[in-house]
Every structure is written in structure tokens, then in C-alpha cells.
């Protein structure tokens, strides 16, 4: 047994250091099953002090490590690709402070996204970033990925809602980034840290902004007979200067999977695609905008636009949307999801092409995505045991990325680069761009111990 294991046991107790290979298998991948690698050990800290202790031991022994929240990530971010230790933060799940007068909450990183919104709902507030995985994913994981979600169209990403972080740097030192409610001075290290995919250090405390619930919410479902029409409607809404709080698209393959699952929301299975559109704000503007949206959908070929009658109907539609990935996951052994973003006006030209690429490789694809942001989520259903199919999945993914970059887009809108998209980084960034990023990483982690093998392509070759 390595000597550092004994040292870790001293900090958290013997039973909170997992080394049994069988049990480590549960930690070999995150939400994206295509990348698998078991860690050497998993530890379960319960406090920031324990995290500091653990990190100092690992730093001293030069053992690589990484934090893990709920493991719902979709880019292989929480995979210990170089072995090493996973710090599983699920037990650091306390809401430390809720301060309505200053509209903020202070939480530990293991708090589940939805739990925070539930805790403040009765007082009339919510936490705005709402990844579809919000029933499971942690706020620490959200910070690391700069997570988005359907309502980020209007409310912005995680980075727009994080006011302060306490971070254990890879050498065990503790720093505060941001002012936890006031403006810090100096470089915006807080903004830089959010979205650094667990490679700059481990977050032990987060201050987030709470948002007031809107006066009125209206949810519409528009269905279309072609994907092109659906895309055109999206572009028309954005171009009209209306900013819905959410503008989501689901295609037929997705609708079929959802309707055959426990998330069945009564979506029309004969539609080519539907748009789930939500407006919120003052009743006076929501009414007016809803009328315009109905009109824009109609002129772009919508067969029908319905308005959710009550909260129950609204909740059902959203359950269908948020359950879509799970529903798709059930119909094939493995699921690959990409996350490219395109300029919104190019949607009508790009989306049909994405389908053509999948067809060319003989793959089953379903699209369910944040259309208003131009953030695609092509989901490819496949069987990881079929090596030829895996190869086709990878080639199709590359073609989709290349297409999106060609029209002015980028690789990922919310899931992160992780392990999964490293190879595509040179499609968007030059060597100089990547070198600048590497310099920043070296400032936070000079020894390269914190979640190594992620985000940036490494010069030395490595076989995946």
C-alpha cells in the first residue's frame, strides 16, 4: 500500500478511503460512458479542512487528483485518466447561509443544484442556472463546467451567478476568489476559474446570486412538420428582438423516446420537431411577447401552438424536456452527446446538415437542445461493444464539429472539453491561443497534478 494512502486514512478515517478495485469501478466514468478509467483511490472529505489536508498529502507525494461532484458531467471531466485520487464531495452538501436582503446564498460544493432552488422558493427566489441534470448535479460541478441550462438564454450561465469562491489550490493553499457579494479588486480570477473544469483547484465554498421569481410565466409548445421550419422559427424569434427565458427544440426521435418513457409529456409524436418556449417577466410584457411568438411560429410553418394552461401542464412539458436525455439513454446501450454552438442565424442551414452526417455514417441520432442559444446537442445512440460503430460515432462527431466551426461556431457551449473534445481544440484555437491557456493553467497548477489530461491538448503523445 502506498504511504500516501495511510496518510489519507489518517485524515478522513479508514473507511472513507476506497481502494478496492471493484468499488472503484463505480468511479471509472462520468455521464459520458465512452471514456473509462478507474482511479487509484476515492476519498470522501467532509470539510474544507479535510480537503486541504488531502490535497497537501497528494501534492507532497506528487499524486494526481481531481474533485468529483455527482459525476453527471458529459465530457469525461471527472474521469481519473492518469489514475490518481478522486475527492468525492457529495458529503459537503450543506447550504451555509441564505441572505435575502443581499440576494445571495453560500453553499458547500456538494449541494445539488435543485436543492438550492427548493430551499429559497417559498421566499420567492430561485437559483437561475438550471441544467437539465439539476436534480442530480452539484453546484461545485456546475462551477467547474460553467454549466448552462434551458433558462440560460435569458439568465446567463453559471459564471453570471457566482459571486465568490473559496478554493483549495493544487498545493493546498486556500484562496478566496471574488468578493462573495461585493466586487473584488484585481484580475477577474473568479470569472477565470468558473469553467476551468476542475483543473485550477478544488472549490470548497460558493456564494451564488439568488434571483427573484418573475411575476408571470408563460410556456408554449409549437409543433412543426419539418426541422427546417422549426429552425427558421427559432431564428425569427431571436431576430425579432424577443428574449424568451427558454427556447428549446426536440426532434421526432427525441419525442418518440420521451413519449415511450416515464417522462411522457403528451408531445405530438407525428411532428418533425417541437419548440418549447418559455417567456417570463412582467405580465404586461409576457402577454404581448407571447402573441408575437405565436405569430412568428405560425408564419414559419407551425402546425399548432399551444399554451400551457396551468402549472401542472407546464411542469409536465418541462419534465419531458429535462428527462429527454435519460429517455434516450434507455433505448441503446450507449449515448454520445455533443455540445457544439453555432451562430443562431445559421441554424436552418446547419441542422439539416447534421442529420445528413449522421445518416451518412448509418447512425441513429436524436436532437434535443438549447436552440435559442444555438447550442446543439446531437445525441447519437450506439453500442460501445461494436468497435466499428464506435469508430463511426467518432468520425461523425468530428464532422459535426468541423461543420459548426466552419460557420463561426465552437466546440462546446456548456459541457466542457474534458477528455472528450481535446482533439478538436486545434479546430478553434491556434498554438499561440492554446499556449496562453497553458500559461494560465501553470499559474494555478505548476506541477500539473490537478485533473491532468483535461481541457488542453498535451504536446507529448499519449494513447487514449
Amino acid at each position, binding site marked *: 500500500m502506498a504511504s500516501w494512502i495511510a496518510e489519507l486514512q489518517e485524515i478522513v478515517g479508514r473507511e472513507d478511503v476506497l481502494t478496492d478495485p471493484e468499488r472503484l469501478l463505480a468511479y471509472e466514468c462520468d455521464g459520458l460512458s465512452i471514456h473509462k478509467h478507474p482511479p487509484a483511490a476515492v476519498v470522501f472529505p467532509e470539510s474544507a479542512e479535510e480537503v486541504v489536508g488531502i490535497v497537501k498529502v497528494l501534492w507532497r507525494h506528487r499524486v494526481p487528483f481531481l474533485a468529483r461532484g455527482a459525476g453527471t458531467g458529459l465530457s469525461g471531466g471527472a474521469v481519473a485518466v492518469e489514475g490518481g485520487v478522486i475527492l468525492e464531495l457529495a458529503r459537503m452538501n450543506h447550504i451555509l447561509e441564505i441572505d435575502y436582503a443581499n440576494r445571495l446564498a453560500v453553499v458547500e460544493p456538494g449541494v445539488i443544484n435543485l436543492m438550492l432552488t427548493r430551499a429559497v422558493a417559498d421566499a420567492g427566489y430561485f437559483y437561475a442556472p438550471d441544467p437539465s441534470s439539476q436534480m442530480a448535479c452539484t453546484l461545485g460541478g456546475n462551477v467547474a463546467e460553467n454549466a448552462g441550462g434551458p433558462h440560460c438564454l435569458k439568465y446567463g450561465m453559471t459564471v453570471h451567478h457566482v459571486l465568490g469562491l473559496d478554493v483549495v489550490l493544487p498545493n493546498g493553499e486556500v484562496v478566496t476568489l471574488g468578493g462573495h457579494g461585493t*466586487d473584488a479588486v484585481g*484580475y477577474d480570477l473568479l470569472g*477565470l476559474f*468558473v*469553467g476551468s473544469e476542475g483543473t485550477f483547484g478544488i472549490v470548497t465554498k460558493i456564494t451564488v446570486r439568488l434571483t427573484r421569481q418573475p411575476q408571470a410565466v408563460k410556456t408554449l409548445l409549437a409543433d412543426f412538420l419539418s426541422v427546417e421550419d422549426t429552425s427558421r422559427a427559432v431564428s425569427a424569434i431571436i431576430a425579432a428582438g424577443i*428574449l424568451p427565458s427558454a427556447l428549446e427544440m426536440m426532434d421526432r426521435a427525441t419525442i418518440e423516446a420521451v413519449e415511450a418513457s416515464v417522462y411522457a409529456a403528451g408531445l405530438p409524436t407525428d411532428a418533425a420537431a417541437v419548440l418549447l418556449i418559455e417567456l417570463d417577466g412582467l405580465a404586461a410584457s409576457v402577454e404581448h411577447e407571447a402573441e408575437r411568438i405565436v405569430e412568428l411560429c405560425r408564419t414559419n410553418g407551425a402546425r399548432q401552438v399551444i399554451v400551457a394552461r396551468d402549472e401542472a401542464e407546464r411542469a409536465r412539458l418541462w419534465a419531458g424536456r429535462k428527462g429527454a436525455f435519460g429517455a434516450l439513454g434507455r433505448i441503446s446501450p450507449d449515448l454520445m452527446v455533443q455540445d457544439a454552438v453555432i451562430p443562431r442565424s445559421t441554424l436552418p442551414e446547419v441542422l439539416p446538415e447534421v442529420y445528413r452526417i449522421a445518416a451518412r455514417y448509418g447512425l441513429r441520432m436524436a436532437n434535443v437542445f438549447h436552440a435559442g442559444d444555438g447550442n446543439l446537442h446531437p445525441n447519437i445512440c450506439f453500442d460501445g461493444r461494436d468497435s466499428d460503430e464506435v469508430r463511426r460515432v467518432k468520425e461523425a462527431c468530428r464532422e459535426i464539429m468541423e461543420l459548426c466551426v466552419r460557420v463561426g*461556431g465552437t466546440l462546446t457551449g456548456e459541457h466542457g472539453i474534458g477528455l472528450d473534445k481535446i482533439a478538436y481544440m486545434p479546430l478553434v*484555437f491556434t498554438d499561440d491561443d492554446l499556449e496562453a491557456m497553458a500559461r*494560465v493553467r501553470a499559474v494555478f497548477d505548476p506541477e500539473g497534478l490537478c485533473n491532468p489530461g483535461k481541457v488542453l491538448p498535451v504536446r507529448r503523445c499519449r494513447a487514449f
Partner: protein
Amino acid sequence: MTLQGADRIEQELVSIVGEANVLRPAPEAYAIDDRHPSFVVFPGTSEEVAAILRLAHAQELAVVPMGSGRRLSFGNLLERADILLSTRRMTRILEYEPADLTASVEAGCALEAFNRAALPHRQWLPFDPPDANRATLGGIAAADDFGPLRHGYGRPRDSVIGLEVVQADGTRIRAGGRVVKNVTGYDLNKLFVGSFGTLGVLVRVHFKLRPYPEAEATSLFLDSEWERLESGARQILQSELLPAALVLANEEAMSALLPDYPRKALLARFLEMAPAVVYQVERVKALARSLSLEFVELRDEASRSIWEKLGRLHRLLSTDLRLRLSVLPARTVEAFCAGERALGETLARLHILAQPGTGIVHIGGKLPIEDEPTLSLVVQAIRHLRTMWAAHRGRVIVEHAPPEIKRRVDVWGEVGASLPLMRALKHAFDPKRILSPGRFVAGL
């Protein structure tokens, strides 16, 4: 720099940007605090900016990037300033696709010019920093320069989606991209936005835009005491209302803004669809009645013009000291009053503007004379405010002050435990310290 050395550098600069675009020495208008740069250059392209930086890097000349010069005196005194690099000639809108609600501009593009071009498409960049009528978009990004609209739209930092930056050694890099949602690699936008020209020269900025509101109105509550105004602000913040800006102003500020109403005031700006503006004005009118506050309503042009004036207030009152406090929002009025107490006796025309929704408080005034006792009173007041507010996570930044004050206090105040990281970042991006040396926190 020897005379021959300077001649040689002038020649090289001329060979990069042409004779008409080099000034030597810098005319008085280009002085930064009490420092006079040896050269002012006006590159026309990012290639020229890169060539200037390659030269500066090789010769270890200090380069200070500038937009309109509006915020040049924001920062600690420069250690050196050899070349003032102006983006004045780089004013193009490079890409603007209204259907994407995004745009790319050269750093010297003026905010006003851009918004004029976007208006026909009912879109805009909702920024209102001080002297917005002169501001360049590169300058706004470099200083993360905001005004009262921060309340409803966030800081410029939240609207920047991509950058092109010339680094200290002249290599060019891009950060972010042209799409509104992007987590591809580290977000270097955040590093450069608000770095005040100390890590690189921004040459291009990509923004996401907002729909331009259909209507606007400003509601004004007036009183002689803070108590009821504060309660009005609190009630608005805890209601369904969505003001784009919410500002408390003292008598001095109000007498410059609206000479007919030289009282303490709460200003709420509503930018929305027409029926929503009407609704909100009615709601706050009822609120004013319930608090027995005097109420004034300004519509459309009258509303726009009061906010435009507010952005020039420091000029109208010939301010020579301006502080920015950032406190927890619920303590805004407390900070307001603390600032008044600390500086009320020392400064003339003390005007205070505070945002109860964001906790930003601006205190400005005029030094009656620049003698030793006055300067040391001001310095003491700044130190006092800093100590007092440090206990509540508050910060006090000196946005504008005469050099004599900057010699005595760090304008940024304490950084805290993250300073070593900032030092290391400065070193990683500008190892020779040629970019605005000394200007930033802790004299980085």
C-alpha cells in the same frame, strides 16, 4: 532613453504607422497623471499594434494602451510610459449580424457609434459608463467600465463573448469566440476584461447584444431624509418590478441633474415594452404615495437625458476626487452616509450616487485646495473607509485623484490572498513588465 535612441525608435514607429500617426513628444492632452509619454502612436490595424509591441518588447519600452483617454487616470501612477498607444484609428464595426444578436468591433469603435448602427435593428449594447458619449468599446472592456445600467444588464464583462489580444511580445491570440455560449477551453476573456491594459492590448471585441427596449421612463422619489427613500428602494427590489437602473442621489448631485429638485432622491429607470413601462410607473407611483414621498415622472427623452447627464456629473461638478465603494447591497445607504461623513467636511460639491441593487456607491467632490493638510485629510478618509468596510467584505477604489494622493495610497486597496496568483499571471503574460507598468493592483 538617449536622444539618439529616441530618434531611432521614432523612425521605427514611423515605419510601422506612418509619419502622420506618431506624435513626439506627447502633447499635454496626452499626459497621464503627471507623466508625459515620449510618443503617442495611432496604429490603424491589429498588425500595426503587433509590430509596435514587438518593437517595445525588444527595446523594453513601456506601452500604455488607450481608447478615448477617458479612464487613463484610473489606476496607480505609472512607473514608466514610453509609448501611448491609441486605438483612435481602429473604429470599424467588423461584423454585425442582427439575426445573431452579436457583433465584432475594433477596439477604438465608439459605444455611441455602435449603438447608432444597431438602433435600426432595435438592438444595443446596454452600457452607460461615465462619459459614455466618448467611450470606446475596447476601453469599456479593458476597464470593465459600468454605470447604473449594471443593475439590470450586468457588467460589460458579462456581454463580452470574444477578444483578439496582442500580447506583450507582439503575438496575437484570440479568446472566446463569436457565439453567445461558449466553454471551449479557459475563458481568457475574463482575464483580459478589467485588466486595464496590463496583460495585453485588446484589438477586437465580440459582444452579445440586447434587444433595444420599446419604451422608457424614469420615476423620481424625493425627500429630505434617507429613511423613506431607502425603504422605497428596498420595496422595489423585493417586488416583481424590473428596473434597469436604480440610483440614490444626494442634494448636490440632484441640483446638477435637475436644478428644480435639489433634494435627496431615488431614481428608477424602466426600459421595457410599452405596457410594462406604464405598469411599473403606476406601481411605483402608488408606492411613493404610500410612503408619502414626492414623485416625479420623466418619459422618453426626458428620461434618457437625465441618465446621460448623470454620466457626466463628475464633469459638471469639476470633480477631482472620485471613490467607488462596493459593499453588500443591503448596506448601500450605510456606505453612502459613511462616505458623506468621511469626506463631507474636506471636499466641496460632494456628490454621491449609489446603486442599492448592486451595492456600488460613487462619491465625488472637489478639493478646495491641494495643500498638505487637505491631502492628508483625504488620505485618512480613504484609509478610514477601507478599514471600516473591510470588515463587511467592502472595497474602496480610488477611481480618480490627483497624483499627490496616488503617491500616498494604492488606488485599488488590499487584494488579499489571491495577490500571488495575480502576480504570477502578470509575469506569465508580461514578463518584462512593459504593459502599463505599475498601474494595476499592488503596482503590478
